[in-house]
């Protein structure tokens, strides 16, 4: 089955997908480990796609490839038609277009919540005041207006993940990649974080790709891509 062609039925006829993953492989140890083994999918602008599958099926590896954190062994990934292999500066690309949310938050422990949010904007041309104001506004949006100057160690898991979402949004990304963002949270906080992610995506018309094990999370997605043995089993189930 041609996965790309089937996925394309979710897009307008002449629309360029935000992400086009074409027969991508990611092998380690001279091919003995096949983390991604022929993934092939297209994601439309503004779509919310959930990726699920058993442990070791290549979900996070695929997310790393989509996020330009890893380079595929073969195959091509295009962002709005531009192949990643043509990008001169992957870090710059990530900074401009992609926001990451990790399962274990990955906040810098020595920085306050507002400073953590400002980290991706450190090299951009805004003034210090603009950066600070924007970070404060995002944290307020996440319900953390009273915790701007709190350090990660003093925040709950849910609060930390909300700081991480604000951090992912500071550079106005086109795409948010979330790797099991609710995996380390209790159900109440998980629901809150999910609502914030979905709400932010809708308010900003951002594409959201989320790796998750949680069916209650994937049920909220426009489409679910199932991974098994390094490839997507089905092209995507519209929900």
């Amino acid at each position, binding site marked *: 089955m041609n996965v790309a062609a089937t996925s394309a039925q979710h897009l307008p006829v002449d629309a360029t997908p935000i992400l086009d993953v074409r027969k991508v492989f990611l092998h380690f140890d001279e091919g003995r480990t096949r983390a991604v083994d022929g993934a092939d999918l297209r994601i439309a602008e503004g779509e919310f796609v959930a990726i699920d599958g058993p442990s070791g099926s290549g979900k996070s*590896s695929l997310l790393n490839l989509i996020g330009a*954190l890893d380079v595929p062994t073969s195959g091509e990934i295009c962002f709005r038609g531009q192949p990643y292999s043509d990008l001169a500066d992957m870090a710059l690309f*990530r*900074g401009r277009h992609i926001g990451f949310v990790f399962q274990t938050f*990955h906040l*810098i*422990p*020595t920085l306050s919540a507002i400073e953590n949010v400002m980290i991706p904007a450190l*090299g951009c041309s805004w003034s*210090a005041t603009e950066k600070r104001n924007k970070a404060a506004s995002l944290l307020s949006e996440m319900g953390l207006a009273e915790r701007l100057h709190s350090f990660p160690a003093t925040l709950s898991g849910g609060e930390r993940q909300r700081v991480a979402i604000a951090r992912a949004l500071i550079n106005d990304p086109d795409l948010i990649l979330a790797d099991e963002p609710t995996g380390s949270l209790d159900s109440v906080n998980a629901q809150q974080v999910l609502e914030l992610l979905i709400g932010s995506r809708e308010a900003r018309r951002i594409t959201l790709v989320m790796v998750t094990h949680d069916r209650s999370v994937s049920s909220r997605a426009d489409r679910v891509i199932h991974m098994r043995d390094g490839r997507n089993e089905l092209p995507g189930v519209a929900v």
Partner: protein
Amino acid sequence: MNLLTLALGNLRRRPARSALTVSAIALGIAAVVALTTIAWGFEVSWQKANDARGTDLIVTRTGSENAMPSPFVGAAVLNQLAHYPHVQDVAGLLSEMLTIGDHSPPIFVFGWAYGSYLWDHLKLLQGRWPADRNEPVVVLGVLAAEMLHKGIGERIELEGQTLEIVGIFQSSALVENGAVLMTLDRAQSITDKPNKVNVLNVKMDKQASEADVSYVKEQVRKTLTGYVAITSGELVSRNAVVRIAKAMSQVTILIASLVGALVVFNTMLMSINERTREIGVLQALGWPRSRVMTMIICESTLLALVGGLIGIAVGVLIATGLEHTELMRGKIDAIYSAPFFAAVLGLSVLLGIGGGLFPARMAARLSPAQALRHE
């Protein structure tokens, strides 16, 4: 928030490790500062002493100028030197380092030709000068009087001879302030070196030009076989003690630099290993490799800079302490100069950059995905 505050925060995470690294750098820099200021101080003290006397050229035995000048019979050479054009005065000088009494530290003892220009720059504070070339008396530099706890009318014993203190003087040169001074004839007598001098000091007249000084140097080379005429600066810089002190200071700089760079290198390597995943996060968030490198080098440079500042302060304390020890007092005038401290701080910064460069490159070259997977 900027890279500097971020780097400071990272260093504060492991305060004990950062403090140990700073201490190691500070110790190395302190050794560099103490040894170098003393080595330079030794050179400058002697230079000052010669300059204060108004000596234009110093004549000594060939080869002897490289070490402590060995004594020679000066009369024949002196007579010949006195006939060169523009030579105003030639004065013999004998110097020794002797112990006065059983418990005092060694002290410089100078014998200067009686009535020569060598005495002219000294300021008599108390008493009088020796009345003739053979009078068995000494005058003390103001610091020597303080160190020996002696005053006018008291006596000191030198090489078995008892000499009366008849005057206390002050000089613009520390070495002379810390010395016992007598006539050349008396010094030759008590050291059992009749008619001998270590050097002959040549003073040119006011009309003498650089070319005239060079002419005298050339004439000595041509006509006085076995002797050499050099400036006081040349004598001091060729002096074996000065050269050994400078060599020791250079070796210390080299060792301190290597140790400092290795300590910074090790600290930064450990720090990066601990923060691999965090560096991966920064890269994922769009930090270019250059910014990651700059942050790491900022951290290593801050460590080295703080170590350098503390090291300079400790080095100055050590040098000042050494200057005032019984053994060194009145012999060395440690030199503290702003350009030297700036150079030491520059060295510290170089250590920081040098020690941090490889770890920074390592961090910047990490694959973000691999770094995020790091346990």
